[in-house]
């Protein structure tokens, strides 16, 4: 009888998913942001953000190498608080959003570090895919507003010229851009 009860408990646990090693989170658009900044004439920073972002991450706390992260940014949603500049940025001199509508990150390897996770993956922008490694700081799960939530923050420095951006447009706006990702995930 005890053996049957144990078996039943295992079956029920499997059915409810409570024994699953990985937790799957949806990107929480309301409490997340993907911003960027680039030098303007090497005297100041131009800052902006992408308003339409989606993603998923699966965290396996027992075996972090099985965790996965993915992020998809709609390039068309670029927002620098200046409608004319945003239109300019959408054109082929910059993001060419009709040709390259999304900016994507896909993880390929994950390992735990004291601050969170070190995630290696591919970053695709403007039709060019490059390997990058992100240091995701965070990862502590809390329960709030009826959902289990986890959050990460990271910064990614990249050169626009590496992603085949028009070199004629590099000068007044610096080649290097910093992408700042603060994302929260949620699950039931």
């Amino acid at each position, binding site marked *: 009888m005890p053996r049957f009860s144990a078996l039943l408990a295992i079956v029920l646990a499997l059915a409810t998913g409570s024994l699953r090693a990985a937790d799957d989170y949806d990107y929480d658009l309301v409490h997340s942001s993907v911003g960027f900044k680039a030098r303007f004439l090497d005297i100041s920073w131009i800052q902006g953000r992408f308003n339409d972002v989606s993603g998923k991450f699966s965290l396996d706390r027992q075996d972090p190498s099985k965790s996965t992260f993915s992020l998809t940014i709609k390039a068309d949603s670029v927002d620098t608080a200046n409608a004319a*500049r945003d239109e300019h940025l959408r054109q082929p001199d910059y993001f060419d959003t009709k040709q390259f509508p999304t900016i994507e990150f896909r993880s390929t390897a994950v390992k735990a570090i004291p601050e969170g996770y070190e995630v290696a993956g591919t970053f695709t922008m403007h039709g060019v895919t490059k390997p990058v490694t992100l240091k995701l700081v965070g990862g502590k799960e809390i329960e709030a507003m009826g959902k289990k939530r986890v959050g990460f923050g990271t910064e990614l420095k990249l050169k626009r010229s590496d992603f085949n951006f028009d070199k004629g447009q590099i000068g007044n706006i610096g080649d290097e851009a910093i992408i700042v990702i603060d994302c929260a995930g949620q699950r039931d």
Partner: protein
Amino acid sequence: MVVRAVLGAFAVAAALGAVGAGISRRQPALAAVAAIVAFVWGVVAGLCLLRALPSLPPTTGLDRYLVILLPVALAIEVEAAANWIGGFWLTAERGCVALLAVPVLLHGSVWLEGGTPAVVILAAALFLWASWEGITGDVRSSGDRVVAVVTVGALVVAGLSIALAGWLKGGLVALPLAGALAGALLADWGGGPTRGRSGCGEVWGTPGLPGLTAVGLVALFGLVVVGRCFGRLGSAAALLILLAPLLAVLPLGIGRMLPDSAGQRLLRSARYRILLALVPLVIVVIVAKADFDTRLGRLVGEIPPPGPVVVAVSPSADPFKLSRTPGSASRRVRS
């Protein structure tokens, strides 16, 4: 850099065209091929000077325009000029290119993946094929130079409009194309009129004129499509630009149908047809400039250069006075 690119394209095309016309004075077919080759080298020189050579493999609409559409159109016109093909096969080749032009230019973009209606693509293909086949055939038989001149103007206007709408590189690329076409046409006309057989029939006028006109029309069509779909060239502006070469040739056709009269002579006069074609082009430029002034003009304002700035603390009422180092001059910048 832009002026140098346009002048370079013009000079290379004109020089090579003149050499080609001189060498092949008694061979119209060879002279026609030489005119197209001169245009090609003019474009290459212009794009090099502009530092706007396409990337390989082509990934953007502009790359596919420069690497696929234009070379294929040039190859067909070389075939036609050299009498390698003619009649049905020439028409069929042009038809195939016209049918594939828009899908190739928009390959991999949201326009095709989002499901642009097939009827739009077919209408664009039909327009390109009809204007390519019809106008080139008319130029071949009449030796009319007006369409070629208007096409050069339309290329310039398309380029300016695309650049003013915010896609600088896309717009500037048009200018060496226009320069090379003007140079090749000038050299071709300098060679003097000939009469002979080339392509699909008897040729009047200068030997390179039909091929150069055809290439100019395809170049204009492709540029307008990429400017409309990837840049911010409006639909109305795109249509008006494409309409200009038609306005240069339509009165000629109407005039031929009328009995000899003052009206008929007016319709056939080059000056009248150029003026008629210029109307939509001028409208497009005015609207593009006004749109630029209201939208992007503020992003391209005069601002201080990134020279060293000294913060001087003085006991006056203005404690923090910004002073600029001598010799710094303001310059125009983009966003």
